[in-house]
């Protein structure tokens, strides 16, 4: 009797313990499962964009309609390349250079923001101006032109732009009439480099824009605008006349830099309208393993206006073929004249 009572008691305890342990091993978060099929990848991509892309309303894109249109025939796709082409084509409906799907054999892209416009840039002309005796500091190439105008070429905001290097560049130009910052064909990079460079040209803390983010999955679920300021650097500043050269390939972080510099006191923007790209891009992926990039956080200028489709220059100037044949860059020449006449 005593033994039976003990066994019964432990059996009940054991059963309760087992149940508790089983319960405690149970997961509560539901992870979306997507099939690695053409349909599965299509639905995953569409949903990622539906929940995270930030420009549906601004660009007046009916994403549900696009789903209906591109969904047809998905189930008949058998080749990986065909699937890629369909998904890329769907993403191009957004007309956004920050939206890409990448596979091991191709990178989907929308480049009409510069392909449909004059280039306004020739590398061989830049080589002629720089020659072979230019100096290099991080991602910056710089020299003083023969009319005592400083010229700095910065081709990629992904390239480093150190504080000490910037000090040397600006000190080099301290006796010049002014300086040119050529960011044409600069497709963007790190926002931190954009802020770091811009901070050398402001005398006081200046509001230069706003940024916001999505707070939910709805197309209009956005946060309040967070202000963006440029705080003047405590290192070498340059407060003489500055001309920033732009063209249609100025995108993303370059677009952000140009937007900030429009508020600097001694800066003039010369060239062509920038390409835009004001959405801070995030990454995600679909079951087949292809990453997808998309605009997630819209940025605005200080007047809270959209700059997704670019920034107009203060002085529009285009590259002239006649000048190019004489090894002259019309835009650089216009900038030099502006500085000298200042």
């Amino acid at each position: 009797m005593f033994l039976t009572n003990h066994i019964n008691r432990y059996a009940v305890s054991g059963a309760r313990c087992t149940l508790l342990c089983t319960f405690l091993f149970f997961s509560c978060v539901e992870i979306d499962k997507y099939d690695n099929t053409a349909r599965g990848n299509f639905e995953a991509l569409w949903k990622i964009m539906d929940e995270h892309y930030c420009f549906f309303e601004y660009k007046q894109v009916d994403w549900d309609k696009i789903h209906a249109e591109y969904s047809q025939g998905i189930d008949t796709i058998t080749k990986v390349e065909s699937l890629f082409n369909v998904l890329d084509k769907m993403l191009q409906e957004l007309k956004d250079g920050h939206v890409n799907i990448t596979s091991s054999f191709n990178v989907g892209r929308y480049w009409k923001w510069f392909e449909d416009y004059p280039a306004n840039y020739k590398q061989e002309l830049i080589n002629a101006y720089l020659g072979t005796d230019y100096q290099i500091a991080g991602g910056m190439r710089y020299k003083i032109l023969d009319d005592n105008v400083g010229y700095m070429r910065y081709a990629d905001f992904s390239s480093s732009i150190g504080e000490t290097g910037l000090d040397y560049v600006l000190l080099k130009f301290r006796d010049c009439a002014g300086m040119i910052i050529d960011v044409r064909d600069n497709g963007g990079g790190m926002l931190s480099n954009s802020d770091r460079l811009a901070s050398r040209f402001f005398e006081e803390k200046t509001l230069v824009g706003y940024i916001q983010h999505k707070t939910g999955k709805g197309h209009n679920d956005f946060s309040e605008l967070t202000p963006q300021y440029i705080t003047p650097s405590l290192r070498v500043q340059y407060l003489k006349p500055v001309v920033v050269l732009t063209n249609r390939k100025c995108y993303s972080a370059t677009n952000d830099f140009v937007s900030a510099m429009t508020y600097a006191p001694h800066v003039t923007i010369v060239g062509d309208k920038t390409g835009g790209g004001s959405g801070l891009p995030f990454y995600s992926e679909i079951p087949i393993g292809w990453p997808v990039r998309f605009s997630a956080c819209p940025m605005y200028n200080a007047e809270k206006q959209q700059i997704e489709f670019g920034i107009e220059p203060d002085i529009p100037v285009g590259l002239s073929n006649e000048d190019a044949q004489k090894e002259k860059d019309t835009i650089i020449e216009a900038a030099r004249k502006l500085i000298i006449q200042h």
Partner: protein
Amino acid sequence: MKLRDNNGCSKNWLKPIFKGCKVHGAGYTVREVRCAVLLCFLLCTVHRAPCTDRLIYQSTMAGIGSSSVYDSYLSPLEYKGYNFGLIYEEMSQTKILKGNVFAQHLFQLEVSDTRNPAETAENYTGWLNYDYGLFYRFKPVQKFQFFAGVQAGGLLGFVYSLRNVNNPVSVKAYINLNVSGMAVYSFQIKKQPVRLRYQVNVPAMGVLFSPHFGQSYYEIGLGDNADLVYFASFHNQWTVRNLLSVELPFKTFTLRLAYLNNLYETRQNQLQTHLSSSSFYIGLSKQFFIVSERKPNNNFINVFD
């Protein structure tokens, strides 16, 4: 102070006390005995409370296992891979409730390397967890012990995507009050003592960090840091830690083998996190006295006797 094991007292601690007294050959002089008696009298009368030594249980283990990582801020896919971990535990009796309450320090470090189903992307996950707990011990029947208590602790960690830009990392941070329980069963297999222990920790309430649904850390860096800390409980946080271990005391060491199942899940701001791991650990444990400066005696209670 000098550490000693729980096999008996050591006389070595007496040497510094006898430094001023002379020793002549074998035995002690009358003057030496008077020194000792006077010293013992002083030690035992200055501190009126009974002299007790505190037994500390300490365990260190290293482990390896499998991990599953899902973080919707970084990817809609579940990543799987392996992990390495370290567990350090310290437990000792307190004076609360006539010595029936035991204090536990529990540190856990885990790093993992996981990949997406297509093996085209890789995530690194790392976190450090610390819990301090107080447990009341029940001894309903011989060889069985149950500990029930609460813990206060926190976790700091990250999930890092090697591929993502602008949203490459998801920070994990929480502070919680946990409910915790432990069951201990001591038995023998032939002449080998075996101690089987199971502990479960369940955070009941606290606070956790979470960015907003599509918020970038760049914006947080700009000063957009409102509403990043949230009340955490069973409505948005489901975390449980199960640790099952077997201890095999040998002559000079105690081997500890363990299985750890970790589950960390949150749902906040329409972001979901699921971090789970199953790991096997191996290590050593020991119990030792810290001798107080009071007069030592053999009044002690083993933590797991």
